[in-house]
């Protein structure tokens, strides 16, 4: 009895282990990459208003300087960091002059902490707040290289150099370069500053932070610089066509494009027999849009027949709306069967809020993966197997009836044999 129990326990444990033993996929950490160094430029507002003493009892400028010192100490080795100021030099009242006042304090490149800190120490709050021109220059500073590029803008007031809207400037910059993000930090901002800075951040997929304390400032800037150091896949720029025949042929990878409001984008992908096409698309709203939106991704044959579609719709605040599709192409008996050209059509139903510029188009991100197709499918249940008490009951009943019948048959057979 004891032996049987032990055996039962052993078998039970084995079965439980087998059944529950679905191993977890272990997430491997992304390796260090040899891609070009990530570049970050800190853009600091040194306008007159930075003299205000309202951050933990000190001036805004003092808080910014302290934060910069801490960030410079903690900057990862691989990050190329630069510093640009706006409103640091011109003291006069001439708007035209004041709006040109932006200067590269420390060039983007391998960081010499002592030099950078010395340069920061010399700053004194002075002039205007030319955010737009400073962003344009900062984008130029970061030009070149394949790494991620990030601008961190720290300001305490809105742009004083209209009519150049810094928000539109940011959008233009993002449309020109790939992988450039602008994060903004508002030092004790008023409502207008907040709106403007958050608009700049939204235009490039960046973040906006409201800073009221010294620690918040250094923590946040440090975090943004660290984030730039993380390896990220850089998408490849492509330009979709307005119909399939003219569309660019894409291979597996990550792509980016711009799609105007109400515009279709077509791409082509070649799929061999037995392969599966996976495509996903996200369209970001980088400006104020109406609260209801959607996106449609269709896979269409060269002759215009729809194979499969992915659609998504949403309402309310969002950064992107995304969808995807899968198209497993069946195996072919013919070994020489050619690759099929599948057309991918992307449309989004964002509509711009009133008074918002509709150019450049909305940023679109497309991932394409062509992988091995799925294994054959024949049944809703795995290998046609069953489970549950009904299955057991049915099998027992049928087995019992079959046994009865067989027993009766053999008895009858013996009886017949005997009689003869």
């Amino acid at each position, binding site marked *: 009895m004891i032996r*049987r129990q032990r055996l*039962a326990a052993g*078998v039970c444990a084995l*079965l439980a282990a*087998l059944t*529950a033993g*679905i*191993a977890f*996929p*272990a*997430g*491997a950490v*992304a390796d260090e*990459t*040899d891609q070009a160094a990530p570049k970050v430029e800190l853009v600091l507002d040194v306008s007159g208003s930075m003299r205000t003493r309202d951050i933990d009892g000190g001036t805004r400028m003092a808080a910014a300087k302290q934060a910069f010192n801490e960030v410079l100490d903690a900057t990862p080795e691989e990050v190329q960091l630069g510093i640009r100021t706006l409103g640091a030099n011109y003291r006069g009242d001439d708007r035209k002059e004041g709006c040109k006042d932006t200067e590269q304090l420390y060039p983007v490149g391998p960081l010499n902490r002592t030099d950078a800190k010395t340069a920061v120490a010399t700053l004194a709050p002075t002039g205007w707040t030319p955010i737009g021109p400073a962003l344009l220059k900062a984008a130029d500073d970061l030009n070149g290289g394949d790494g991620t590029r990030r601008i961190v803008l720290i300001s305490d007031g809105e742009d004083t150099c209209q009519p150049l809207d810094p928000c539109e400037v940011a959008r233009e910059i993002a449309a020109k370069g790939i992988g450039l993000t602008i994060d903004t930090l508002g030092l004790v*901002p008023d*409502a207008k500053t*907040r709106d403007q800075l*958050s608009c700049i951040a939204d235009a490039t997929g960046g*973040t*906006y932070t*409201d800073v009221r304390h010294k620690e918040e400032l250094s*923590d*946040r800037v440090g*975090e943004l610089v660290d984030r730039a150091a993380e390896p990220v*896949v850089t*998408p490849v720029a492509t330009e979709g066509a307005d119909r399939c025949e003219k569309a660019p042929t894409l291979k597996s990878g990550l792509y980016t494009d711009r799609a105007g409001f109400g515009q279709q984008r077509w791409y082509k992908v070649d799929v061999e027999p037995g392969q*599966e096409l*996976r495509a*996903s698309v996200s369209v970001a709203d980088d400006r104020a849009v109406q609260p209801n939106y959607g996106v449609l991704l269709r896979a269409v044959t060269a002759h215009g027949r729809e194979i*499969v579609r*992915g659609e998504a719709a949403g309402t309310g605040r*969002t*950064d992107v709306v995304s*969808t*995807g599709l899968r198209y497993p192409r069946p195996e072919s008996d013919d070994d020489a069967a050619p690759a099929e050209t599948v057309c991918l059509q992307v449309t989004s139903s964002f509509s711009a809020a009133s008074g918002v510029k509709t150019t450049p188009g909305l940023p679109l991100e497309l991932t394409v*993966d062509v*992988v091995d197709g799925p*294994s054959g*499918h*024949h*049944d*809703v*249940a*795995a*290998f046609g197997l069953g*489970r549950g008490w009904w*299955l*057991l009951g049915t*099998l*027992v009943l*049928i*087995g*019992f009836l*079959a046994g*009865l019948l*067989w*027993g*009766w048959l053999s008895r009858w057979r*013996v009886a017949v044999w005997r009689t003869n």
Partner: protein
Amino acid sequence: MRITRVMGAALLALGLAAGPAAADSSPSPSASADGDAPTRAGTSFRTATEIDQGQQATASGSTGDYLYWSFPADTGQRPTVRATVKLPDAHGFETWQLDVYDGLRRRQSCQYGAQTRTAAQGAGSVELACVLRTVRGWAEPWANDPLPGTYYVRLTVVDLGAADLGKPVGAEVRVDSKGIGGAAAVDGSLGKPLVPGIAVTSEEDKDGAKGAVLSSFGSDDGWSSGWWSDRWVWTGIGAVLAALAGIGGYVLTRGSGRPSRVPPNV
């Protein structure tokens, strides 16, 4: 007597069949301890921070940020995503939302759980949860059933007063999953798990070069092959029981093997 022993063994086997089924309902073991849980979140699908199931990931951000994490989920699991947002001291009404997307960036529905919740003025935190559907091994291309692969979690505020924008918040996210077992087992499996960029990753693996990847949950690290389910146990035991019942039925009708009216000495 032999029959009772056989039946006893059969009942024992029956109990064993129920055993694994019961074991399935316990939460799956966590992949790793909280030792090096991520303390940051991504801001887009592309930059989503990878977490393992059972890890308590934390992040600090600003109200209005879109925080992204990604986690792997395998066949037969039913993931539950829980998020807690720690709100600043003073704030107005804020509505927070947790969305889950699959490896194709298709939004996945929650079976239950408070996916969207409004924090009252000055509330200290909001708790959100989303219980996904069971991950299947295979689905038709036209369905958006959850499939094994990468899943994305997006946490964000969807409705807020303008004055609250940019205020610092803290977020905690944890994904656990329940093993559903054979009840969800279907025929067929994907060629590769639904991990974005996997076609590029596997090519690079061949070259030996490794760059940044969209999602590093690889094709060979421990995804279930999809052939095992407790249906094998159920069906196997059913077959054994059917055989035993057949023998029982045979013994009952056949009698001692010799017709009673035939005298033993013939």
